[in-house]
């Protein structure tokens, strides 16, 4: 187990990268504490798998260093880093039994037979696969296969970090939930540092103590799930996390006040910087309808079960609201009220208001 430090990390798949666009990873500086559960969240192609492969040693970064505790492992191959990785598709050794699959990493490292046996039995019990130990791994269902590939990572007791690369992609929806809670349970039992890569916000937010949100090779925000939801540091985080995501409304900053379609909007606090175009961000959860609000017209209503998502337009600007209880009719004129302490201004994508405590 170890603390993981990524220091000034950059990576390009080109031999001679010319501009910042050639970099799949742009300047990453992160420290992950020993024993933590972290998630890397971002859309496909944001560089999260590249980052994962750099940590595991399958890729060597173009610039920067990777430290496990204080040891520089940047140039070490995967098998010398004592890491484990679970892939998108379950990787199992078809011809071996479940037992041999779990024992394989230990056998390759020359561990004694009795020690192998006790480790394999312990891990099998943790994963609830004890009754399958003598079956051939090829005959297992996908979720059990994925459990075995997790087990191969956990079986070594010297593992620095276990990494998961979208491990639930091929698992049936009703088993995803089970496997996810298994994973959480495992983390509490073995206390290894775990990094979970996904583009699914539910997976990231339920698994991790801390979520790293990435976009186009950059880390846009690191925080607890609550922090990411409450105060997104970037419009991307606001939009990517939440369902539906944050409303990002084109507005204007004039004489120290924010204006939306010509109407003054109260923000959570003072805005830094000069007058000009800004974006006003507010989550649909904090949008209400009522008298005295910004004039708008309801354009669409989607019933998503426990609540309704009401779409309206303030002039030309679309806005979504999550409403429980009474909903206005489509086509009706309504007043839109934005909850002040949840209404923030963004400039160039980045948060520009200060919170009033």
């Amino acid at each position, binding site marked *: 187990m170890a603390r993981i430090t990524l220091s000034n990390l950059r990576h390009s798949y080109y031999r001679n990268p010319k501009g910042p666009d050639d970099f799949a990873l742009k300047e990453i500086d992160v420290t992950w504490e020993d024993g933590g559960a972290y998630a890397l969240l971002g859309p496909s192609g944001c560089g999260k798998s590249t980052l994962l492969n750099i940590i595991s040693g399958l890729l060597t970064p173009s610039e920067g260093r990777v430290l496990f505790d204080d040891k520089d492992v940047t140039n070490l191959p995967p098998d010398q880093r004592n890491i484990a*990785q679970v892939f*998108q598709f379950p*990787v199992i*050794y078809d*011809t071996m039994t479940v037992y041999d699959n779990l024992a394989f990493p230990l056998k*390759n*490292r020359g561990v004694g037979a009795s020690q192998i046996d006790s480790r394999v039995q312990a891990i099998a019990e943790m994963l609830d696969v004890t009754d399958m130990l003598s079956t051939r791994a090829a005959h297992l269902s996908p979720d059990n296969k994925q459990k075995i590939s997790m087990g*191969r990572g956990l079986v070594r007791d010297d593992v620095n970090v276990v990494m998961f690369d979208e491990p639930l992609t091929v698992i049936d929806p009703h088993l995803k939930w089970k496997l996810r809670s298994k994973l959480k349970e495992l983390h509490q039992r073995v206390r290894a540092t775990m990094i979970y890569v996904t583009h699914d916000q539910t997976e990231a937010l339920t698994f991790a103590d801390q979520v790293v949100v990435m976009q186009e090779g950059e880390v846009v925000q690191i925080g607890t799930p609550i922090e990411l939801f409450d105060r997104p540091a970037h419009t991307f985080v606001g939009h990517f996390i939440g369902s539906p995501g944050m409303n990002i409304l084109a507005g204007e900053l004039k004489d120290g006040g924010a204006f939306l379609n010509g109407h003054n909007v109260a923000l959570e606090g003072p805005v830094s910087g000069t007058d000009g175009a800004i974006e006003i961000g507010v989550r649909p959860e904090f949008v209400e309808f009522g008298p005295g609000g910004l004039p708008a017209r309801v354009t669409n209503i989607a019933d998503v079960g426990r609540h309704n998502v009401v779409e309206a337009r303030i002039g030309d600007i679309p806005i979504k609201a999550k409403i429980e209880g009474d909903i206005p009719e489509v086509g009706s004129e309504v007043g839109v009220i934005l909850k002040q302490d949840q209404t923030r201004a963004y400039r160039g994508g980045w948060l520009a208001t200060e919170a009033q405590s």
Partner: protein
Amino acid sequence: MKTENQKAWFFVLPVLFLVAFNALVPMMTVVNYSVQETFGDNLFFWQGLDWFEQILRSDRFHAALGRQFLFTFMILIIEVPLGIIIALSMPRKGPWVPVCLVLMALPMLIPWNVVGAMWNIFTLPKIGLLGYLMNDTLGITYDMTQDPLAAWITIIVMDVWHWTSLVVLLSYAGLVSIPDAYYQAAKIDGASPWGVFRYIQLPKMKTVLTIAILLRFMDSFNIYTEPFVLTGGGPGNSTTLLSIDLVKIALGQFDLGPAAAMSLIYFAITLLVSWVFYTLMTKDDAK
């Protein structure tokens, strides 16, 4: 309730006709010959199973069958490992992939009798490049028209040259279908190169290798054209494989009855070995 749709039979009919005319009918004429004796003029005499007994007891048949098994065994034991090694060393990505594939496919595109003729000219002493090189430059006596061992080496090398590509291409297809994650997982698990081959590559190649071995067995067991053009079964009878012997009996001596009986035995052996091999190889998957 499910109603059975009898119309489906009509769709099978064309295939049935096709198979009947290109396989069943010719096969039955052979069966017909195999139990009768004829002296021409369409006169036939019932012979029962005499021809079968005669063939099965004949030393000549035993010798040809032995040579046939030896030949097939030799080429399989060379072509399969060699094919896998070549497939493993071919690039998985990049501009060299098509180049390698075309190079590999080339020998298989050459008509079989041309292969025989090529190797004949190539290996003849005095006039052939290889023959000249061996005898006159290196001073090693090499004459496949006189020496049985040289003839055997030549037909085996020729077959390896002609058909290893098939094993290579099929193995390669199996190899490139392995996702990168398997190799990465093996690296992380600390597997040795042999471990990667034994537990990842070989199991993933198993299906295509089964087909490759099956095809190479059937083709090599029925081989005729190339050795016939190259050695004509000689020197003596040393390279007279089953099919060459069969043609000698059927068209050389015009013994249609024994030849027909021999064809059926030949066919039964090919079928039996293929079936046993295929059943053994696929047994695990069915479990």
